[in-house]
């Protein structure tokens, strides 16, 4: 079934009785060519691109809960390509390009909205770093521009330019950055993958990874044994547990990161705004809620919920930066489980087991990476070769010291 405005009208006229399931509920087959463990954004996009770009028809995605039950449905929905370390630059650049044509390709409105993102800076030193970043972005072929204090004042009159603890010097704006409707991304990929024949199997938890002679042969699940010669682990948030089934110890520590949404408000914040001196970034959803987040709670956790210190810190940052949001009320707070790596960058690589692949370590930047992550993981699983835009996301880079450290904080997982 193809979605369109016309279809919405014709279905509306006939009581919306004709809408078909967005995806099937298939029973798991005994054997697949490839299995993706994890039905989140990255797993679903991997499956989609395996089927779409490499013509693999016999694929299953195994999801222990419901599709999109992990961080794809718990993030602050920001899409951007403003990294500056080689390895990240080309990857996120590629991802942004995929975002720009995603709706047409998936026939699903993921509400990708290029509303722009500005990262504010508050000192000469921060300005120079922002310039270095902006230059790297432009060198990569993406867009970035400096905004002066006066430019900012015009576009974002409600920021506090006078009393704030750390004065606003200017900002680095990426106009092509923006937001998307997070759940819709999972659903769009799921529906498109399903239409290409991918079996999306929910409530199917992988409990073991079977290998023979250094090769993967299949997985044990709560719904029985399923065979496959290629298995991708795409379970950010639970990467360590699933990798342990294959005897692997990963360079990952799991942390909780909170996010927040207010009650619905009439449009007031048009772009994504990031504060450079505290952990605070904000946008307004199409529904009207202010969606914002901060940093990790900083302690290892699988609880998917946070505590007050970081929550209050984020609100204090909001009040110093844009005190006009003070009267908005926080409606809901939640937490996601982040795969934190020692350099803050992800892993898309082969493992020591033949046929077993790993897509993990998304830290808290996984949402915008969903298209390119799936694209590159599919390439890796189909060809056995690392995709050129993800070539540096190697598992052995830490041992070798070839790290991709945007924050410059070194091998302490929670500082990235």
């Amino acid at each position, binding site marked *: 079934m193809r979605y369109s405005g016309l279809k919405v009208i014709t279905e509306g006229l006939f009581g919306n009785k004709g809408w078909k399931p967005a995806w099937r509920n298939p029973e798991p087959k005994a054997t697949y060519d490839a299995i993706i463990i994890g039905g989140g954004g990255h797993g679903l996009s991997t499956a989609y691109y395996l089927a779409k770009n490499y013509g693999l028809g016999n694929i299953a995605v195994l999801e222990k809960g*419901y599709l999109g039950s992990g961080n794809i449905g718990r993030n602050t929905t920001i899409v951007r390509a403003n990294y500056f370390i080689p390895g990240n630059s080309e990857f996120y650049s590629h991802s942004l390009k995929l975002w720009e044509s995603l709706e047409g390709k998936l026939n699903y409105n993921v509400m990708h909205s290029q509303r722009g993102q500005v990262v504010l800076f508050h000192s000469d030193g921060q300005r120079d770093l922002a310039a270095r970043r*902006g230059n790297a972005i432009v060198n990569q072929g993406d867009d970035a521009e400096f905004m002066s204090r006066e430019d900012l004042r015009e576009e974002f009159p409600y920021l506090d330019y006078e*009393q704030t603890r750390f004065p606003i010097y200017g900002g680095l704006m990426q106009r092509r950055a923006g937001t998307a409707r997070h759940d819709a991304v999972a*659903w769009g990929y799921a529906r498109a993958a399903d239409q290409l024949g991918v079996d999306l199997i929910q409530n199917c938890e992988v409990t073991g990874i079977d290998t023979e002679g250094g090769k993967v042969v299949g997985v044990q699940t709560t719904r029985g044994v399923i065979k496959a010669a290629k298995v991708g682990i795409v379970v950010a948030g639970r990467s360590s547990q699933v990798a342990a089934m294959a005897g692997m110890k990963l360079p990952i520590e799991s942390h909780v990161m909170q996010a927040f949404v207010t*009650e619905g408000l009439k449009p007031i914040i048009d772009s994504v705004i990031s504060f450079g001196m505290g952990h605070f970034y904000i946008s307004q959803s199409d529904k009207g809620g202010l969606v914002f987040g901060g940093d990790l709670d900083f302690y290892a956790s699988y609880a998917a919920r946070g505590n007050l210190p970081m929550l209050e810190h984020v609100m204090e940052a909001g009040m110093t930066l844009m005190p*006009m949001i003070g009267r908005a009320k*926080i409606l809901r707070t939640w937490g996601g489980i982040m795969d934190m790596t020692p350099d803050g960058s992800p892993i898309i690589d082969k493992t020591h087991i033949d046929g077993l692949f790993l897509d993990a370590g998304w830290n808290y930047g996984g949402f915008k990476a969903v298209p390119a992550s799936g694209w590159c993981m599919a390439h890796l699983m189909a060809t056995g070769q690392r995709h050129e835009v993800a070539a540096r996301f190697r598992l052995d880079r830490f041992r070798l*010291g070839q790290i991709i450290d945007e924050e410059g904080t070194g091998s302490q997982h929670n500082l990235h």
Partner: protein
Amino acid sequence: MRIGGKGLIDRTKPVKFLFDGRAYGGYRGDTLASALLANDVRLMGRSFKYHRPRGVLTAGSEEPNALVEIIGTKNQTPNVRATVQEVFEGLNARSQNRWPSLRFDALGINDAVSPFLSAGFYYKTFMWPRAFWERIYEPLIRRAAGLGSLSGRHDEGLYEKAYAFCDLLVIGSGPTGLMAALTAARSGADVILADEEARLGGRVLADDIMVGGKPGSDWVAEVKAELTALPNVRIMTRTTVTGAYDHGTYGALERVGLHLRARANLPRECFWRIVAKRAILASGALERGIAFPMNDRPGIMMAGALRSYLNIYGVAPAKRVTIFANNDSARASARAMIKAGVTVAAIIDSRADAPMEDGTIVHAGAQVTTTRGRLALREITVRKGGEDILIETDCLGVSGGWNPTLHLTCHMNGRPSWCEERAAFVPQPGAVPGLFAAGAANGTFSTHGCLAAGHAAALAALSDLELRPASVMLPEAEDAPYRIAALWAVAGKGRAWLDLGNDVTTKDVALSAQENFSSVEHMKRYTTQGMAPDQGKSSNVAALAVLADATGRSIPETGTTTYRPPFVPVSIAALGAGGRGTGFAPQRFLTSDQASRDRGAPMIEAGLWYRPSYFPKPGEATWRESCDREVMMVRETVGVADVSTLGKIDIQGADAARFLDFVYSNMFSTLPVGRVRYGLMLREDGFVLDDGTTARLGEQRYLMTTTTAAAGLVMRHLDFVHQAFCADWQVRFISVTEAWAQFAVAGPQARVLLNSMLDEPVDLPFMGCAPLRIGGVEGRIFRISFSGEEGYEVAVPTRYGEALFRDLVARAETIGGGPYGMEALNVLRIEKGFITHAEIHGRVTAFDIGMNKMISAKKDCIGKAGALRPGLVGPEREQMVGLRVSGDKGLVAGAHLFTHGDAISRVASQGYVTSVCWSPMLNQWLGLGFLKNGRARHGEKVRLVDHMRDVDLICEVCDPVFHDPNGEKLRA
């Protein structure tokens, strides 16, 4: 309309308020909703999606419909629940999400086209043409969506945050909470009793229950009086406990001043962090609706709310009331209405075996199948045994049963369990450690049951707290059983609302199941059920029952969505209280701060510190003029700068030398007493952590200096290394950063200046240190330089800092010198090729900055093994270089470097610039930067490109030391 003789409002205190510009009267103690109902105003809002007319549904914070904007003198507050906002003289409220007016809302058109706006319709359309999304479709959607509006003006209101600690936190002051608080308080426990309402009593007041043979309000007053008199009890009304967090921490929001006219020093709200050893959740239960067709009209409300309005506010919402229920509890509403003189047209009870009611028509086994009335309810249709009955009525009180208010028990990922008998979820015991749900919150609905449960919960808490319980008598009260036959939805023509806040109907839920969004989380996210301001408080359970039905599963199989904090929405301003303006981070001031300001120096942020940028002289128009002068002053005569922000750590003990050898890459055990050495510190992963000078003050005593930025980080690092790896070593250290004021005195006349102040002339070799007496004060002097000139740093106890600075500057000025600021300091260090955290930015190795030899081969140190990794050394790495160019066009930090002739691309980038300055001494632009294989490229012309500031020029790569490369001036 107001009912005489009923309610707890203060009829001696009339107040006037505005709603949508019209003046109304109410009484102190009224909420906006009760006062409007008293004035027969029933239309209070428009719905989110279809813009349907809506009236008030509830009498509490769970209200989904009656959300308004409160207009203040300087600002406005959106999405305020009319059921929570108390009226005060001059209160100005405005309806929201409507245009041009509440009675006529243009977007009401949405209602007419609702078939095309089914759940998730927007995922299926607006995709073509692509450019239209951002330009046309999305702006339209955004404008139509949202509820209230922010003004865009800074919130200048006063907000507070506070901590409180107690043995027992009692959440809710109904029969359960009062009994629990009384029992615990009499037994000597420190008790906090928090209630969301303005009055203690909860449903004792709302239902006008007899307790201990007297009217409930009397009993509440007695208990309140006793609790108030006890020193170990804190009563917090208007305080909603919003969240349960780890280890007995609870968040709570107190509405301190929202019910009063604004005053300058009156906080609006206070956010409390309450740490409680034990807590009792006595939050009661929330009534839920029934999804029958067209169940959203103004005048349709919760049956229990009818009792609240009558008994607390003395208001009847209508003249002719009908009740529709599936349980016994709503009968009390009918009786109360009749007693108050309101006509009860009928009781429609869906249960076939429903009991009869004296003097009232009861339609047993009947259901409401549709309603009529545009801006207010006029008539309903009841189906009974295949027959339709029309009933004229202007109010329908609905009860679909009661959901225990168990939200807090789920805040730490606890899942409630389904109780078939009560047709409700009940809390999972132990879901929040230390928190016990009791009474209606735990599914006990009779008053007697609640009193007993509150008492029992308090006894359990007292036992945990090891307190001996005092004797408390349980008062007598009704103990009626709770009889219910689940009824979630009524089939029929027309839409039946579940979530009134987000306009989610049973059809939407069915559609989500039809499209295989059949997990409860999928349904929620696809339909937006439960995501409105009320977070589905009165609709979630019914929605999942409808989903269970649509998917052929039971309710427990279907599961629930997660209740997350906060229990009620909390303003950002309250949670962020204190962050406004400069409150966001501490401010650190130098001892010379006032002296610098006295000289007109602009102070700039350096981490948490404020430091002088430059010291303008009359006639200097730009910072550059001042900076250039200060640089030349240091190079030619003498300059004074406050460098106290650098971290200082006093390290002592027999193993101090050994310890420094371990934390620094180079040797410190070989440093003679009275000498200073530059040290490089690595992180364990081999990258540069920090640098600085460390002086050996004695055989077993060193004074370490860190950079300003890394002072705390290094202290933490030293503590870790010591405690984790060599706790048995004889070494102790402490940060003395704030104990000393330290001033750099630099320039050819530095010694002259110092000698003019000191009893004995300075006689220190370069990198020497010695004790010092200055004006009778014991201090220290170090011969070190961050400028490349002969330089000293003089340290005195902090309390003498300002005096010394003023004296140094005054004397310097007599010989042509003076103070210099951060700008000049930066130029001086760039000219000399000294690094700061602009260079050692966390991705830089000793190899990169040409200091690989400082990693001593003779010993182990933190970071040594890490630094040997192949990725940390080698020609492909960017190495630190100097850059220079003559002429007007300046270098810019942040620019990238390219091999001359290469195309500009990421792949071609050869490096970047970290620091730049105009050198008034060399008359050219200087820079420090990192360039691939840079040390082998001195003399090469490279292209510098900065897209951000439109700079594109050719500059020369050179050694990073521009000034006095052999250090002759330093050692002068």
